[in-house]
Structure formats: C-alpha cells, structure tokens
C-alpha cells in the first residue's frame, strides 16, 4: 500500500474550527454541559473514548454543543512494529461517531515488538526514516479516509544519526505524506532551549499551508533544561514565539493544553483569551 497511494487526501469535510479552543478534560464535563461557556471548539483525547459507556456518552453530549477535534497518542507512527489495526479500527469507529474537524497524533514511536511504553519517543531524522514514516502516514490516512495532523514533540534526546534538522524533516514529511501539521509552539521553544537552536529557523522552514492547528502549553524549568509537563500557564518566551507564528501562518486555530494539575475552567478560559489577544483585529 502506501507508496502506490497517489490520490490526494482531502481534509475532513466538517465541521470547521476557528479561534482559540481548550483541551477537553473530564473534570470540566459538568461545567461545559451546564453553563455552555463561550468556547469556539474543544479538543478531545481520542485514547479516552475508545470504549463505550459514559465517556463516549459525555463526548456525544458535548459534541452536540461544540465542534471537536480528536488528538491521540497511540498510533506509534514511527515504530518499526506493524500499524496496530485494532487501535486504528477503534479510532475510525470513534471518528465516524464524533465527526471531528480533524484527527491528530504525534511524530513519534511508542512500541517495540508489541510492548508499549505509552510515551512519545523521538525518531532519528534521516532520509530513510522520513520515507518510512511518510509511507505509514499514507497508510493511516488511506484507512481513515482523511488527512491527519502530525504534531512535533519535545525530544529530550537527539540521535547522532540525524542528517536533517527537525524542521527540515517535518517540512519534507508533511508534503511527502500529504498530511497536515499540528505545530506545538511550546515544544518548538522547549527544543530550542534544550538543544540550542534558533526557534525562528524552525518556524521559517515550515510550509504555512500545512499548519492547521497550534498547541500552546506551559513547560517546567528543571534547572538547566525545560520539561514539557503541560501543567503550567504558557510562559513569556512561548507567547512571543506564538506571535511570530501567527504572523507567518495567519490565524490558525489554537489550543490551550493542560494535562497535569488541571485548573478550573475559568483559568483555561483566561489563557484562551490571552491567546486571542495575539490575533490580528478585524
């Protein structure tokens, strides 16, 4: 399959998202359903809704009010393991039921011989790996019947093998795999500090037409290096980089991500409002 796929994949047909959304967390179901706060869209973590019962029931209730995207961690796109068909089937079932604006996962791998470590590990950036991952993305898109978005990581180890920079790898990959990009500005910033490069070099290499979503989150300074914990407000340097990204890519739908020590919905709304403040006025 894969390399013989020549037809261009369409983005998912509906619904469109715009503005600054918030990551959907179960702590906020009741608030969202009762008060229906003014949020343009929400991002659900696909992996939390692969079964039945109350979780998917809540998601369908929320879907009736807000446009949703699906964001996952389980595709293991860069693994040498075969694509996990069971997981992919469950993801497609979820997508058919929820009709997300789009589906995203990470540019990473997370399994070896069927053993999962349920974390996002980095890839070596070489031409051979690029061809391999592009083929896997094409297979996934063929199965799902739509383009997916891939998200850049914050790797804490970089391989000596690298013959390409991360930004050149991603810029080539999204065209070769005909996929879109979920650009995590916090991760670009964290990587720039940890690995000593200019984040503007990164942004300038990215093809603007492929950037369909931006993530903003808070890192943790571990003294000497930055750790992408998603448990803090967005930091000053990330806001500055976000401004540059908006100038370069236009008003791309943006998401506030917060995964640990999840605050009240009001705190997330305030972060979203702050992000909206960087958008150009009509």
């Amino acid at each position, binding site marked *: *399959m*894969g*390399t013989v796929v020549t037809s261009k994949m369409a983005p998912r047909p509906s619904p469109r998202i715009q503005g600054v959304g918030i990551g959907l967390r179960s702590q906020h179901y009741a608030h969202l359903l009762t008060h229906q706060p003014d949020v343009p869209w929400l991002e659900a973590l696909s*992996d939390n809704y*692969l*079964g*039945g*019962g*109350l*979780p*998917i*029931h809540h998601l369908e209730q929320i879907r009736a009010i807000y446009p949703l995207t699906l964001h996952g*961690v*389980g*595709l*293991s796109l*860069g*693994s*040498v393991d075969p694509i*996990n068909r069971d*997981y992919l089937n469950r993801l497609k079932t979820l997508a058919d039921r929820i009709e997300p604006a789009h589906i995203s996962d990470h540019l990473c*791998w*997370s*399994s*070896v*011989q*069927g*053993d*999962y*470590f*349920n*974390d996002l*590990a980095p*890839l*070596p950036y*070489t031409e*051979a*790996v690029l*061809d*391999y991952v592009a*083929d*896997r993305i094409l*297979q996934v898109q063929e199965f799902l019947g739509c383009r997916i978005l891939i998200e850049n990581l914050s790797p*804490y*180890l*970089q*391989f*000596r*093998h*690298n013959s390409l920079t991360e930004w050149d790898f991603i810029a080539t990959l999204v065209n070769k795999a005909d996929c879109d990009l979920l650009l995590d500005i916090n991760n670009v910033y964290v990587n720039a*500090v*940890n*690995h*000593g490069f200019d984040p503007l070099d990164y942004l300038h290499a990215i093809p603007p037409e492929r950037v369909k979503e931006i993530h903003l989150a808070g890192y943790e300074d*571990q003294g*000497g*290096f930055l*750790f992408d914990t998603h448990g803090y407000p967005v930091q000053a340097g990330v806001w500055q980089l976000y401004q540059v990204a908006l100038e370069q890519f236009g008003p791309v739908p943006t998401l506030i991500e917060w995964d640990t020590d999840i605050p009240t919905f009001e705190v997330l709304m305030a972060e979203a409002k702050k992000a909206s403040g960087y958008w150009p006025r009509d």
Partner: protein
Amino acid sequence: MATPPSELRELQNLFYQAIVPHAQQASPQIAKLPVQTSIDQLATQIRSQDNLGFEQGLAAYQGSVMGKLTRALEEIYPVCCRLVGPEFFAAMSRVYVRQHPSRSPDLGDYGSQLPSFLEQFEPAAALPYLPDVARLEWSWHRAFNAMDQPGLDFQALGSIPQEQWGQIRFELPHSSVLLASRYPIHRIWQANQPDNAESAQVNLDQAGAQLLIWRDRLETRIDLPNEADWQLLQAFAAGHPFGEICAQFLDQEPTLDVATRLPVWVQRGWIAGFLIEDMDD
C-alpha cells in the same frame, strides 16, 4: 508496505531497553542486554547537547514512562490504593511495572495482572482480601469502559419456532464478569467509595461474595445474585443450550424452573443476546 530501515529497528530496541525498566521481561524477540549495557550503547548513539545531558534526557524518559504506568494503576485500582495507602501503592506499582510490560497503546488495558501479582506480593500478605478487591476493581473498570452493546433483539427471538427453543444459547452482557470471593469484597469496595456515607467498618467474618459485575447501558453495576441465580448465571456463562440448562436445574435440589426465571432476567438486562446454531449456518 514499506520495510523499516534496519538502523531504526536497532535504535528502537536499544532505546526501549534503556528507557523501560521491565524490558528485561519483555517479548522474547527483543534482544536482551543488561540495562547498563543498553544505556552505555544508547549513549554512543546520542548527540551531545549543551543544555540537556544524556543522563538528564534518559532520566526524563525513564521517569515519564514509570509515571504514566503507575498512574494508570492508581486510576484503575483506587480502592486498593486506599486500603494500603498511597505510598505503599506507589512502591508496589513500581515493582509491578518492572515485571509487566504494557501490551497495548491504550493505558486502560494496563494492569490486568495486578490481582494475581498481589497474591504473590509478600508485603501485602497481611491483607488477604486485597487480590479479590483488585479483581472487583479490574472487572468494574472493564465493564465501565466496555464497548456499547445493543439490547436483546426481541423480534429475532420471537421468530424462533418453539421446537428450536431448546437449542438457544443465551448470552450475558459482554461487559459481565462473575466474581466469587471468600471475603465480603463488595462491602469493602462500597465502604471505600468517595461518596460512601455509611460506616467504613466491614466485618471480615461476614459471608463471602458472589457478584455479577456488568454495565446496564450507562450504569456500571455490582449485582448480588441469590444462590439459584448464581448457579444459573454460571450455566449461561458457560454457553450451554437452553434445553440442557433447563433439564440440569430440574434434576438438582432444590429444583429451579428456569423458564420462569428467564423473563425476570431479561427485564434486569442480564440477558443481552442469544445464538442459535441453525440460524448461524
């Protein structure tokens, strides 16, 4: 289908063994190296960085993987965690993670072996009911997350001619688990729910438990069948044809008229489907 570059395969094997403490117990296909050897070999593959050293990067991944897997156990087994205390549970989880690799991208699939692990876990021996409480929590977790199942198809059932009724194999809900214990684990479980308003005292000399754990549409339930229903549930779970089950229960003491129990069960939702061989052909 593209073949993975061979250097990618080697690198991922090495990375996995260096990052994941239980890789030593993992799949037999994975070339096994002593942990320190895999770490030393991985170090030679890593580009040195100004702000983030190899040891720090390695520790970031090791800590992150251990954190994700132990948190998954904590979320699935909150009552066990409460019974032993969070510090004990965290230490026990780390031992479990080192012995049991995750085999699914879904963290909700992790931890199925914890009940049998607890049976062998010497430091928890003072709480002999703990493994069965863990079985109850695992069953609850699986029922809560089970795929939705359509209700019993009455029309299809009604269309079966009477002479074939004996061949019907009735099915319990896919989410259901039958769980028996010498200990009153349902009371222990109830007393340790966050919303429990009753006494937290459980008399361990009370009778044990025979439980049906399942999900009725959105509601995850722990039902306590009586002795006759318990035996009947086992017969249905074993997949015997209805005629055989009826005959079996007429022969035993006390006798049970299965045909009169069936409508009650259907109403409760205990019967979720049926198979009949002639229709499958």
